[in-house]
């Protein structure tokens, strides 16, 4: 929402004409589309009596003569195009509905007895509009409202005016300073600063030797040793000794460098991977539902390497290459400034040429990469779904599909090879032009005005040294920006605030009673759709509760709220009378266990999986838990029993078996509250019954919440709650609900009939 002070003066003037002033306006908000859905500046004002929309276009006009566009010289003019006014009294229940691309704002018009469309808006403005609706609805209900804490302006980058990509972080990737990223990431290697300093020193020495060598092997050798009258004439042995010793020194330094690098590289990447993984693990479940697991894995592995490369190789080499280039150029000027100019004159042309060539090359590589991605994706698809392919005898279609992708990839690879084949010789040629120039002009000088042969050779070597790092300079810019992306991604994860956070003064309860209470709870995974709508109930400790309802009614969401994978948008979830937001994660995780539909077993043995939450459990306890969950019988038949390895390439368990192992895992924890979310859906009725009986014995003194589709599973529950459209529509025991002849009765009869027709009698 917008504060009145921040409304552009033009808009403010237009509003004032309609009697809306800073004093009487209660709320103001900006929508970026009008009622027809067209982009425009649509301002909404609410006063005590009216709801007004003023639509128009803002134009930014430079004041006075055109010149440099400075902020103070800009004037915002507002051209009003439309005006709509409603009596606030007749409107209620303001809400934002999501469309395919954008949203609409609607309200219930009591005069017309129907919802009316007020305006369109893009998704950028959705959050603001939802806040606005909440305030307005609260105002309509109570006569007052709590203004939201976050100001609208806080969502925009003050520099470029763009919305922050992630609203929880005030960070604009377009305006971020590269150095600040580097500085922050640099903290990772501060730990190894001594090693890094030695590596840098070694690199500097290697460079120095690299600059010295041409002089010794050419200039010094020809002019001082081989030329008559030279200071060391005839002392070939000395030169050989010098050459060998510089080479040996370079070798030694290089070895030290390599050894040190080999030692710290794994350590730094290890650290980085740990930091990344740690940062990811601490985030709330909502973070993961927004991202793909694959890209997260990519992040952990590649980004760490990439960040390491930047600090240990890229950045230091950049500095050393810069120093080397400057030093070489300086030496060349000292030796012979005219010849140095000749060598350098071609430099800018060379740089421009390789910048262009590399640019094109990167495009070709990117295309090859994207085509290989498409090909591999198709391959994974066809191989993963090979059963389906065979079953529908679609082999030839798949072969054709593969051929197409493969051809596209081959074409892209060919382009890359062709380009490499022609461009690199071209670069070498371009480079040789400057050498030839130096050789030619230098040759005349040697023949004519007394430039020595040795000096010319030294000069030629320096020309090579000067041009060598050019390709590096061109490519480093690209590589650095790639690394920056990696660093930025890492910072993004490190800075991401878990949506569900443990309170600072969280209470740890040693022993829970097991009471679960919902007080007017509202919740939705996305803000425009409530999944749980004003739900209240109270579960007495030790009771067995069944939750029934259609698919998508919100049953599992209730479970997610109890274990606090998400926080309620409104209302409270209480455990033993304490708000879950005030309880420590330890209390929640130790006392509440959930077995959900999606059973996940980690790679490892069955024993490890059962003991996941209670690693200290004895073998006897493990067997007892498995017995109770019905898992023991199948486990004991496996050749390796409890030590059977699950996972790729090993024994794979069926859906029902996995569920039984998960139940054993939950039971072993001996939780005070046990939530079974469709935990027995993949089992036959007989096995389910057996587990039920065992659970019954176990659930003495524990609160059990069972969510199931199959109503027979829940028949014995103390209370059954029927959830429909996010609300509790019925509650009572099985018999009570049947007598009521409501939704439960309908569901039960349907299922009963279906089972009877299928010949299954329960």
């Amino acid at each position, binding site marked *: 929402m917008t504060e009145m002070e921040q409304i552009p003066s033009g808009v403010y003037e237009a509003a004032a004409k309609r009697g809306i002033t800073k004093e009487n306006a209660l709320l103001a908000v900006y929508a970026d589309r009008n009622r027809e859905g067209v982009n425009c500046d649509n301002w909404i004002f609410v006063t005590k009596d009216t709801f007004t929309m003023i639509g128009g276009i803002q134009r930014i006009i430079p004041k006075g003569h055109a010149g440099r566009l400075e902020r103070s010289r800009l004037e915002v003019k507002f051209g009003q195009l439309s005006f709509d006014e409603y009596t606030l009294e007749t409107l209620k229940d303001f809400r934002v509905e999501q469309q395919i691309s*954008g949203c609409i704002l609607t309200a219930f018009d009591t005069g017309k007895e129907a919802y009316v*469309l007020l305006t*369109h808006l893009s998704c950028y403005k*959705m959050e603001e509009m939802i806040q606005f609706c909440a305030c307005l609805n609260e105002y309509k209900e109570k006569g007052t409202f709590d203004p939201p804490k976050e100001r609208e302006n806080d969502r925009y980058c003050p520099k470029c005016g763009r919305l922050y990509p992630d609203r929880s972080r005030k960070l604009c990737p*377009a305006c971020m300073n590269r150095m600040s990223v580097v500085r922050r990431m640099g903290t990772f290697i501060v730990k190894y600063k001594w090693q890094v300093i030695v590596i840098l020193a070694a690199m500097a020495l290697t460079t120095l030797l690299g600059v010295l060598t041409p002089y010794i092997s050419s200039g010094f050798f020809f002019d001082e040793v081989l030329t008559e009258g030279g200071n060391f004439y005839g002392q070939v042995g000395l030169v050989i000794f010098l050459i060998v010793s510089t080479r040996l020194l370079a070798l030694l330094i290089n070895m030290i460098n390599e050894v040190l690098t080999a030692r710290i590289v794994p350590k730094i990447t290890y650290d980085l991977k740990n930091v990344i993984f740690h940062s990811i693990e601490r985030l709330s479940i909502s973070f993961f539902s927004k991202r793909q697991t694959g890209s997260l894995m990519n992040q952990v592995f590649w980004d760490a390497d990439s960040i390491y490369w930047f600090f240990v190789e890229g950045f230091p080499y950049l500095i050393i290459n810069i120093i080397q280039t400057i030093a070489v150029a300086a030496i060349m000027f000292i030796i012979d400034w005219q010849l140095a100019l000749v060598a350098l004159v071609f430099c800018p042309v060379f740089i421009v040429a390789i910048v262009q060539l590399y640019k094109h090359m990167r495009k070709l590589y990117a295309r090859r990469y994207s085509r290989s991605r498409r090909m591999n994706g198709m391959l994974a698809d066809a191989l993963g779904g090979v059963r389906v392919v065979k079953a529908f005898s679609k082999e030839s279609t798949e072969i054709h599909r593969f051929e197409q992708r493969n051809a596209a990839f081959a074409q892209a690879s060919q382009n890359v090879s062709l380009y490499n084949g022609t461009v690199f010789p071209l670069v070498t040629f371009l480079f040789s032009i400057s050498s030839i120039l130096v050789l030619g002009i230098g040759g005349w000088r040697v023949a004519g005005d007394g430039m020595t042969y040795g000096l010319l050779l030294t000069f030629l070597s320096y020309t090579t040294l000067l041009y060598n790092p050019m390709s590096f300079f061109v490519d480093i810019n690209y590589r650095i920006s790639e690394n*920056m*992306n990696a660093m930025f991604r890492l910072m993004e994860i490190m800075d991401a605030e878990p949506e569900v956070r443990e309170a600072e003064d969280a209470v740890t309860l040693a022993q829970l009673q097991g009471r679960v209470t919902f007080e007017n709870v509202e919740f939705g995974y996305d803000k425009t759709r409530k999944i749980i709508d004003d739900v209240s109930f109270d579960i007495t400790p030790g009771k067995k509760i069944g939750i029934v309802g259609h698919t998508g009614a919100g049953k599992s969401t209730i479970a997610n709220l109890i274990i606090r994978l998400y926080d309620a948008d409104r209302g409270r979830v209480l455990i033993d009378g304490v708000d879950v937001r005030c309880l420590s994660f330890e209390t929640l995780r130790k006392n509440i266990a959930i077995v959900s539909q999606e059973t996940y077993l980690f790679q490892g043995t069955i024993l490890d999986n059962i003991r996941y939450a209670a690693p200290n459990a004895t073998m006897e306890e493990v067997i007892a838990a498995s017995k109770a969950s019905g898992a023991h019988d199948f486990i004991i038949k496996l050749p390796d029993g409890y030590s059977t390895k699950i996972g790729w390439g090993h024994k794979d368990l069926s859906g029902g078996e996995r569920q039984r192992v998960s139940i054993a895992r939950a039971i072993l924890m001996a939780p005070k509250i046990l939530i079974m979310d469709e935990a027995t859906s993949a089992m036959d009725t007989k096995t389910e019954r057996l587990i039920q009986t065992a659970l019954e014995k176990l659930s003495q003194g524990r609160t059990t919440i069972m969510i199931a589709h199959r109503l027979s599973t829940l028949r014995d529950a103390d209370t059954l709650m029927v959830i429909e459209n996010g609300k509790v529509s019925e509650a009572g025991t099985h018999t009570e609900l049947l007598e009521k002849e409501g939704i439960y009765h309908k569901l039960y009869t349907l299922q009963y009939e279906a089972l009877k027709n299928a010949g299954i009698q329960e």
Partner: protein
Amino acid sequence: MKETSQEKEPVRKLSDVAEIRYLHRGNTEIFLKNGFPGARIQCRQEDGSETVEEHNRIWLHRAFPFDLLKEYISVQNKDQEEIGLIRELADFDEDAQGILCGALEHKYYTPKIAKIVSLKEAHGYSFWQVESDAGKLQFTLQDTFRSLLRVGEDKVFVFDNYGNRYVIESLKALDRRSLRRIELYL
């Protein structure tokens, strides 16, 4: 071998098995109420009697939004439950078609990109400035590769990081510079 289903009863067509309620001018009246479409549907009960189901407001949803814009449109109530299916808009008279088309256009309103003025990348995001039928627009994509959806050979949908959609109706019709800017991501 046990008796097959063929012996028991003749093979039924798929459309006989799946009960789909198609809405058309014969059983449905479409009206506009406060800017939203509503519907009055005649239903034949099992006992042969006829009742009228009135929906003050209906929600429309294209079943094949990329391929068929005026066919197979699901008509839903506020809980997103399907009330019926429109086989094609032409099954209704012109007035009703106008209302339905209007509602669909509102719901599927997607700015059409005519020109890509600039496209810059920084830190894994790409920043776009485009000219569209809705004026000049500026938006940000996170992971450009995943944010572009190519439909057919020529059409591209662009999804920004806040869930807005834009469309490039025809790549062929795009000017060379614009095309060069996005070529890599396609």
